[in-house]
């Protein structure tokens, strides 16, 4: 069902983890649908993404697209990172099954959400960046159930 590249990025995901005091953090998706992605960006004074980490709750494609997205933005300027589309992520993975295309959209959105957070924190405006829609922090009030 998945390409070799997807399987590789799922089994050996690149850049898993957290960044303390990250320049920007974005979380998108929601647990109800079964996908949540969180991206941490460490951005230097030249607006270059020095480091990037991710955490993902989701299926194989969700993990693989997160992993690939981090690879694609690492070392890029924030403006270049903004140009990394879901299509680019999919192509880099040699494609995704049709039902999993939304995972690549989520990965693009997660990058945008992290960039948005960075822009807000540093009080700058990034040309072409819109406020991400599915940032779960907007409606995170729902308490998680435990047992």
């Amino acid at each position: 069902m998945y390409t070799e590249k997807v399987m590789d990025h799922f089994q050996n995901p690149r850049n898993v983890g957290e960044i303390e005091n990250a320049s920007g953090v974005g979380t998108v998706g929601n647990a109800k649908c079964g996908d949540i992605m969180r991206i941490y960006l460490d951005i230097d004074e030249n607006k270059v993404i020095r480091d990037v980490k991710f955490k993902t709750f989701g299926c194989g494609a969700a993990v693989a697209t997160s992993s690939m997205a981090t690879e694609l933005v690492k070392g890029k300027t924030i403006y270049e990172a903004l140009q990394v589309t879901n299509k680019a992520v999919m192509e880099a993975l040699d494609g995704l099954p049709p039902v999993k295309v939304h995972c690549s959209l989520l990965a693009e959105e997660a990058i945008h959400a992290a960039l948005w957070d960075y822009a807000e924190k540093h009080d700058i405006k990034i040309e072409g960046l819109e406020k991400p829609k599915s940032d779960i922090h907007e409606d995170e009030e729902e308490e998680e159930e435990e047992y």
Partner: protein
Amino acid sequence: MDRLIYLDNAATTKTAPEVVEAMMPYFTEYYGNPSSVYGFAAANKEVVTAQREKIAGALGAAPNEIYFTAGGSESDNWALVATAEAYGAKGKHIITSKIEHHAILHTCEYLEKRGFEITYLDVDGNGEVKLEQLREAIREDTILISVMFANNEIGTIQPIQEIGAIAKEHGILFHTDAVQAFGQVPIDVDACHIDMLSASGHKLNGPKGIGFLYIRKGVKIRSFIHGGAQERKRRAGTENVPGIVGFGKAAERAVTTMKERTAKERELRDYLIKRIETEIPYCRLNGDRANRLPNNINFSFQFIEGESLLIMLDMKGICASSGSACTSGSLDPSHVLLAIGLPHEIAHGSLRLTLSDETTKEDLDYVAESLKEIVQNLRNMSPLYEDFVKKQSK
């Protein structure tokens, strides 16, 4: 990775070698059509009858109450649609449960579009139908109650005898989907007041593509497949003789080995359940702890998603299944897990392991070790787990 540990026996089972052996001659030697006149083929009619007797014996039914079909889904469709047609003049109300197989639920939706009213009974947290609610749901125009014998996902066995008694008391037909239960637990159609029962061959080490519908004598349900006099004119089509022979052999095998086999499976099942519960935190056993199919294990692991878990297990040679949305082809997780009250995110992280008589303790130790490692790895990658840990340390 040469190791293969198959723990998806609720999906399908390995066809037993003796079953295949019994079937083989009916492909290559005795291939005649049982409806033919000449002796070469007509002997196959007796062969089919002999299998019918074996299967009827396993249920406490009469041989002429067993109608062979192409499988469990056909049997379920037939039972519902044909009953609705035959008894539609008497009433348009059918009662079923929220945790039925889609062969029942989708057929109910089909009937709803054709003027029937369906009541979907709730289940409790263990997946058991609430008898009180069933009693209250019964109306003047209720023609059928259809509740599965045991659930395919969480393994919970329903109070079939009590449901049957309620149906009988009100003069309502009672159908049960016993696809998972047949060959796993003893079934007596008279004691349970069952009027119709669906079963399938490939769930009990028989071949795929063969099933049956038990129809109690006197129930006036019509033909579903038209075009011939086979199966007492109620199910047309040349008999799948090799399939029927295989099913007969498999049923015989399942019944004779049931006590010993299921005792062993229960022991192994409880062993793995205990290991998972004591060694993996934040998990939940789904389904009734005691009143469940002998080979069924179903867990939810918090903070992780089922498909990821399945792929990781597959890498280690372990075949399992999940009720996560990603594995169901829809956006919602399993309707069964939602019906027992699990929140979406927990239902997404479910895992079903179903044992066979070939499963060993060694296999399960390997599964427990693999599962421990995989769940931890996925949690380390999960933002939900990260948030949870941070909240805990506050």
